[in-house]
């Protein structure tokens, strides 16, 4: 045993490399001094046509829909997930189609793995393109059958009221069991949009926007119906929810709808959050507010008017937009964003996370916290687009995007964690993840940010990769990082893209709203309220035919790298 710290050559260890043959003692020595190469802390996966091998030009896969696990996948314990995305440019496709990818394993502290066994896309003959709800769940399972359902909206043109929802029922072998469409029954234009699916009271429901004529315009309301799990037709109970004052110029539900069971799929109470135009108590007109309420079902659907509240932005701009919710019994968290004067200069978007409690006759306010990137040299707009609650550890995770962070000039994803143990919340960490040369976006709403194996969290979104000749396919991305925030100040690559992670906590102002300069958020139940009518507003239209095709490339490519 000499004093040589290694066997072989003399390459100095670095964070990214330690060539040569090293003795165990030397490894111990250098690791103790933090000089030994650290393992990859953060895995970044691209899914799609990353090599541009498909015929007819690059096929793009957008990270929409979400990442899901069925009961069988959970039981298997091998970290396999469904990845639901939206394809464009597939051969034979008009517009876009719903992509289903099965077989990918998200392993947490090791790179994703697995063999892609299913790589399909859906569209249907009446539609020239499909899209997913931008907020609520689009994939649910009835484990008792077992079957799972995917819902999308399809643009069908003026002859078919522009939009229908389309539900597909699949078994665990991904064989289609049924497929069906819904439109509105009133015959007016614009049909059904933003469909959510939910198992509620052990039954399948669709909740979506419809349109109905009011006061010189076709306004949005929210339609809910139980779905027959054999035929996928609408059935009873059903209802629609609308502004009591929607006969006046403003007042309608325009934005996202997010539904979550109060407890689990067997419970009969649903926590429902949506946004739309309302007259704010502070004055003004036609501003976007977030609206919350609880529904129950059984023989009919009912609505608790006592804890129905609006949450509005009374800053320099009056709009507040919904992005996601988390729920735990009667307690729920809401993420959103608005615009206000920056503390640095001009106006910027801020993000808000609100904790509320449904009470029998009111809504409890447990705090509103504001995240702004307006310090440490930053003056960036910020949008939190999804949240994930780790209730056993009192942690709330978020992801979002902002431009000009982490040294990038493009939009990049940030991921962070908040300790919500006490009424005074603490921002534990916030890191930016940069794909040099391209924007990368975390997706919006449910099932886009999930807790994954080995104390990691995975963000779902999309970005682009360079394939030469000006071809830059859009690929879905998974960013999996440790929950302790240690994936920061690193660099790496994936499929030739330079990736990096950056600690941006010192660029964040994370404050209770009362301490957040220029931002005011208030709850109110004054003014015109919300009505629920127990009528069926869906109808079962001309169905067309469903196309269920292999993707090109088949199977879809996935490439992993890290930072």
């Amino acid at each position: 045993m000499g004093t040589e710290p290694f066997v072989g050559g003399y390459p100095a260890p670095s964070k990214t490399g330690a060539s040569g043959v090293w003795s165990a003692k030397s490894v111990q020595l250098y690791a103790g001094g933090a000089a030994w190469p650290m393992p990859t802390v953060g895995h970044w996966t691209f899914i799609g046509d990353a090599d541009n091998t498909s015929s007819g030009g690059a096929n793009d896969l957008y990270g929409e829909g979400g990442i899901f696990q069925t009961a069988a996948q959970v039981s298997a314990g091998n970290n396999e997930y469904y990845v639901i995305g939206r394809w464009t440019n597939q051969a034979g496709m008009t517009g876009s189609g719903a992509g289903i990818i099965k077989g990918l394993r998200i392993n947490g502290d090791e790179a994703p793995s697995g063999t892609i066994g299913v790589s399909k896309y859906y569209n249907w003959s009446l539609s020239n393109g499909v899209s997913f709800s931008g907020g609520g769940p689009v994939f649910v399972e009835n484990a008792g059958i077992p079957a799972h359902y995917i819902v999308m909206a399809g643009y069908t043109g003026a002859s078919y009221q522009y939009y229908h929802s389309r539900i597909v029922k699949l078994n665990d072998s991904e064989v289609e069991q049924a497929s069906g469409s819904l439109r509105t029954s009133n015959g007016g234009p614009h049909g059904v949009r933003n469909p959510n699916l939910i198992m509620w009271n052990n039954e399948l429901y669709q909740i979506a926007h419809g349109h109905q004529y009011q006061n010189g315009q076709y306004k949005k309301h929210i339609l809910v119906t139980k779905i027959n799990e054999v035929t996928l037709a609408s059935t009873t109970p059903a209802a629609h929810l609308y502004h009591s004052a929607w006969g006046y110029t403003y007042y309608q539900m325009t934005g996202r709808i997010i539904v979550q069971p109060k407890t689990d799929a067997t419970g009969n109470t649903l926590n429902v959050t949506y946004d739309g135009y309302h007259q704010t108590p502070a004055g003004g007109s036609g501003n976007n507010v977030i609206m919350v309420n609880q529904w129950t079902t059984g023989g009919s659907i009912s609505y608790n008017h006592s804890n129905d509240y609006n949450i509005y932005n009374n800053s320099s701009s009056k709009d507040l937009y919904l992005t996601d919710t988390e729920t735990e019994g009667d307690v729920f968290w809401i993420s959103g964003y608005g615009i206000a004067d920056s503390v640095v200069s001009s106006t910027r978007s801020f993000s808000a996370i609100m904790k509320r409690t449904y009470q029998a006759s009111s809504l409890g306010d447990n705090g509103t916290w504001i995240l702004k990137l307006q310090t440490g040299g930053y003056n960036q707009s910020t949008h939190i687009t999804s949240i994930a609650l780790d209730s056993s550890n009192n942690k709330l995770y978020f992801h979002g995007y902002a431009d000009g962070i982490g040294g990038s000039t493009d939009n990049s994803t940030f991921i962070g964690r908040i300790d919500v143990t006490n009424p005074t919340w603490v921002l534990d960490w916030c890191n930016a993840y940069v794909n040099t040369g391209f924007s990368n976006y975390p997706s919006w709403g449910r099932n886009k940010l999930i807790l994954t194996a080995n104390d990691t969290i995975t963000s779902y979104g999309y970005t682009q990769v360079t394939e030469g000749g000006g071809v830059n396919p859009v690929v879905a991305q998974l960013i999996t990082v440790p929950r302790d925030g240690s994936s920061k100040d690193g660099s790496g690559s994936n499929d030739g893209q330079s990736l990096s992670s950056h600690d941006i906590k010192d660029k964040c102002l994370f404050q209770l709203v009362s301490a957040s300069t220029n931002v005011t958020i208030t709850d109110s139940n004054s003014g015109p309220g919300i009505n629920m009518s127990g009528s069926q507003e869906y109808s079962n239209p001309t169905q067309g035919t469903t196309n269920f095709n292999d993707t090109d490339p088949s199977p879809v490519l996935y490439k992993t790298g890290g930072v």
Partner: protein
Amino acid sequence: MGYALDDPANPDRWTRGDPAAPPHVQMSLEREDLSTLPEDASPEKPYAWNWLTGEWDLQDPVEDYEPEGEPPE
């Protein structure tokens, strides 16, 4: 009222009605602009927001229309 077409949050400069546009861009561009709702909107002249053009399209008259709801307080 959503993003302008040249908003940094719309870096690829997606245009209205493009089915390939990401959902947050689609939703933003498709949001009704009530400030441009024609003043003559009525049951005889109902309008529907056309997210393909960003304009209000005149529709066929509505029959048997009866206003619902209570006036704002």
